[in-house]
């Protein structure tokens, strides 16, 4: 083993790397970015107040008393409404639990997210026990979606399907388009009647095939092998997953215009992929994000994909549901913007 030769290789690597300012910058910036995200995410654990709706006649003494005493409990924000309105606010996410006072009291929770559900139930049962007195048995709990047996995986699965689908298609598209640039074939394509729009559409169509295949595998595996329960139609799940892949391909093409080599393409992972993993509702519900980060979530396509996929898979919403349609529309807007951006960026000279 020759020290000189080893030193020569090491020296060469160092000088190559020293010239790649972007890689150097990222070496420092990426960990800081990711750690500050994690810090902001879990450091400032927002003891989000549990939003309780008391359903029943607010005027009768027991309801009023209960409302008053629950309102005093720390971490609870209480209002009252009719039963239908209360359940509706559970559905649209503006409430975490409903306490129904018709007959013996019972509790309804949303239930699609086990982490959130258990947090809600812990706070609420403690407050209820204090309000109703130790003699009263704990009120029964009903679940709008899922149930006490819903596992963490059940609620994570939709997010993971969307996330990994996005991740792989993004990388695949970015790297293969980059190869088109570095191999000189892009030059040849641009010197032919092929338009940029056609090129982007061709890439999209070519990759969509694989994206759909991947979506099938992911979905079948999570449902059949991991035993994740789902309620929506498989078709609806598929539509959302395909939408995610489309956006990923378009973003991959866009990003490849700003990379000079495969290494730089891979460096977009901590910038594009990881933050979406933290902020798009995969790990922490978006409405529980610190105020500083929540607007970021709104600017991320995965946020809407995960919301839609959860609605379809866990809550069994049909594709035609207003919430799902809205998410799909926003995803479509992201997709179109990314595709147009990709088409416009193709001529960017990467020297």
């Amino acid at each position, binding site marked *: 083993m020759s020290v000189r030769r080893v030193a020569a290789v090491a020296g060469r690597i160092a000088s190559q790397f020293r010239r790649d300012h972007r890689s150097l910058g990222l070496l420092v910036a990426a960990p800081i970015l990711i750690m500050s995200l994690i810090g902001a995410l879990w450091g400032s654990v927002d003891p989000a107040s549990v939003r309780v709706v008391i359903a029943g006649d607010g005027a009768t003494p027991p309801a009023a008393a209960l409302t008053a005493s629950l309102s005093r409990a720390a971490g609870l924000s209480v209002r009252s409404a009719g039963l239908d309105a209360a359940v509706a606010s559970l559905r649209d996410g503006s409430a975490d639990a409903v306490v129904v006072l018709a007959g013996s009291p019972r509790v309804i929770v949303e239930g699609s997210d086990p982490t959130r559900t258990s947090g809600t139930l812990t706070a609420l049962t403690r407050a209820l026990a204090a309000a109703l007195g130790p003699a009263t048995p704990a009120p029964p709990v009903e679940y709008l979606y899922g149930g006490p047996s819903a596992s963490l995986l059940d609620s994570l699965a939709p997010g993971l399907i969307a996330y990994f689908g996005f991740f792989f298609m993004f990388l695949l598209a970015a790297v293969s388009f980059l190869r088109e640039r570095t*191999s000189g074939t892009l030059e*040849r394509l641009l010197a032919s009647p092929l338009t940029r729009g056609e090129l982007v559409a061709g890439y999209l169509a070519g990759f969509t095939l694989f994206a759909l295949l991947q979506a099938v595998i992911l979905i079948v595996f999570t449902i059949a092998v991991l035993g994740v329960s789902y309620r929506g139609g498989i078709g609806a799940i598929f539509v959302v997953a395909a939408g995610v892949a489309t956006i990923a391909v378009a973003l991959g093409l866009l990003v490849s215009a700003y990379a000079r080599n495969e290494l730089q393409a891979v460096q977009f992972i901590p910038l594009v992929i990881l933050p979406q993993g933290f902020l798009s509702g995969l790990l922490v519900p978006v409405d529980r994000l610190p105020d500083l980060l929540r607007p970021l979530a709104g600017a991320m396509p995965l946020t809407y994909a995960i919301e839609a996929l959860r609605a379809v898979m866990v809550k069994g919403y049909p594709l035609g549901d207003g919430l799902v349609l809205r998410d799909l529309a926003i995803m479509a807007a992201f997709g179109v913007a990314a595709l147009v951006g990709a088409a416009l960026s193709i001529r960017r000279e990467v020297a």
Partner: protein
Amino acid sequence: MPAMPSPAIQARGVTKTFGRVRALAGLDLDVARGEIVGLLGPNGSGKMTFIRTLAGLIRPESGSIEVLGRSPSRAVADGQVGYMTQAAALYGELTVEENLRFFAALNGVRAAGPRIADALATVDLADRRTSPVNTLSGGMRSRVSLAAALLHAPSVLLLDEPTVGVDPVQRREFWNHFRSLAAAGTTILVSSHVMDEASRCDRLGLIRDGAIVAEGSAARLVERAGAADLESAFLILAEASR
């Protein structure tokens, strides 16, 4: 009096800078239809940059360029331009035939089968039709790359050092083919460092630091430089323009 047909290529005062490098510095060149013009010049003199402006890949900062009487990108969009890049730009995982099929489809070639067979015969690679491109030798790749530029029978052929790594027998075949294309009306602009190749052109343009410094047939350039052959003429003229 019949209207003069516009030249196939007309460049006037073309400039292009990359950062601090002035790649094209007021380049003028006319190429008539059916003419074969060679671009000679030292490394980095701007040959590829000029060819890329003709292929619509670079927009010059100033000056004007017309290809077949229209803008380069228009001519490219009309499928009138064939461009062979200096390095063989092909898909290595695909076979020779798959590559050619793809480029034929991009250029809207109908009945691609016979055209591909023709192009492969021209570059003498019919027997390697099914080989993946990355299993071919360097010279063979150049030949496939040329075949890809010929498929759609473009009116203007831009060839950036088409015969690098190509053996003498094949090179002669190439030039016979270029001649017959030109006789049929195809205009060819070819960059080269090979003098024997340069002497086969109808006309040569000597390019240096992004501008044409001498122009004319090989014989005229030799005469003008008072040299014995084209190679020394090239060296003399290139030095003189310093």
